[in-house]
């Protein structure tokens, strides 16, 4: 089937989409957007996190057809000042090791700071509870979020 949607502010069409296919698979395999990572395909790791309209979701758990007519924003599309600031904070805080979890964490952090400019540590932990990292031990990730929040408020 054909799926028509807006991805990162651009009208896109994907053809030959299998109806049971995930939005993640469609973004990566048919639209060439490999920023969102495929690690677990079961909602556990958050590395596929994107915005569907204005909501943070795991794209592996959305059927591609459910995005028909909707707006999707992936990590590639987070190029506004806030998105760039989050990415820079991750680099500067040393929150990236293998980097596989990073795109999902960047999107989740962006979503957190969008609704809460000054999150407490428990708020940050709660907001990122759906994103797993096997490398960093999370401390640097927390530093990155605090740094991004600080800069955004400044």
């Amino acid at each position: 089937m054909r799926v028509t949607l807006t991805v990162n502010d651009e009208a896109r069409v994907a053809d030959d989409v299998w109806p049971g296919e995930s939005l993640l698979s469609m973004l990566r395999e048919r639209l060439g957007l490999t920023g969102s990572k495929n690690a677990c395909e079961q909602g556990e790791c958050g590395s596929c996190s994107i915005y569907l309209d204005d909501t943070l979701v795991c794209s592996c758990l959305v059927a591609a057809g459910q995005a028909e007519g909707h707006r999707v924003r992936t990590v590639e599309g987070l190029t506004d000042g806030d998105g760039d600031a989050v990415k820079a904070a991750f680099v500067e805080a040393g929150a990236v090791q293998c980097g596989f979890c990073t795109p999902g964490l960047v999107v989740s952090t962006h979503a957190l700071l969008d609704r809460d400019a000054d999150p407490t540590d428990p708020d940050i932990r709660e907001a990122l509870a759906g994103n797993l990292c096997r490398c960093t031990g999370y401390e640097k990730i927390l530093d990155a979020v605090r740094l991004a929040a600080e800069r955004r408020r400044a």
Partner: protein
Amino acid sequence: MTTTALDTPVFLRPTTLAEALAAKAAHPDAAPITGGTDIMVELNFDVRRPAVLLDLSEVAELRTWERDGDRVRVGAAVTYTRIVHELADELPGLALAARTVGSPQIRNRGTVGGNLGAASPAGDCHPPLLATGADVEVAGVRGTRLVPVAEFFTGVKRTALAADELVTAVLVPRKRGPQQFAKIGTRNAMVIAVCSFALALDTSARTVGTGIGSAGPTPLRAPQAQELAAAELPWESRDDIDVRLATRFGELVAAAARPIDDVRGTAAYRRLALAVLARRCLRWAWQEYRCA
């Protein structure tokens, strides 16, 4: 599951309830998909290959909630995030349970209708729906009926839904007293309950509702515990709760469970943990009543 079905699956996207019900009647084998947080896992891992996927996420009627007398009618496609933000005052037990589901990403998509449709004994909506005496609204082209939630679950992952029916809403009594929900897992986020417990006090009728999750083939109630607490709680004096009453309440809840040993825990551990959860929930709820 035939080869043809595999080759030519269909994705249906109704935008009205009437269309959705007509589609379900025309394709009784269609698998509904709302938030997708259960069924997409099955599709991704090829555990299930439905010939027809019926997307309910665009059906406006299913995405609203409204007050209906002394109840709130929560549409099947209302997400956990919305329950937490919009219904915590009126449906505190359900909101507490919704708060514990998965992660923000899962709560942003997962729905009550999907939780009921999946009918896992571990589903977190089920204990508070049992404790408050909610009804499940079920509809098909033949009409709409209300199924008391205790009768909705007919076995492990089995429900009272007919092949041509969908869950359209849950009708949940508005708060009539303190409510609690507690859940055991290996960490605070992203866990399926090892066991869970919900409690709802009705301080006008002076009755106590219970719901047990993940400790039986279906979610369960603990009728003897309910009767004991209703009869012996000091409703009038609002005195502190008697330790023996709380302990006995916990024991009766544990006795009502029908747990098994599985990867998440043993039956013995579940009973032990349930007794503790039940005791604590009763204490917390009673404290709230005393201070009210």
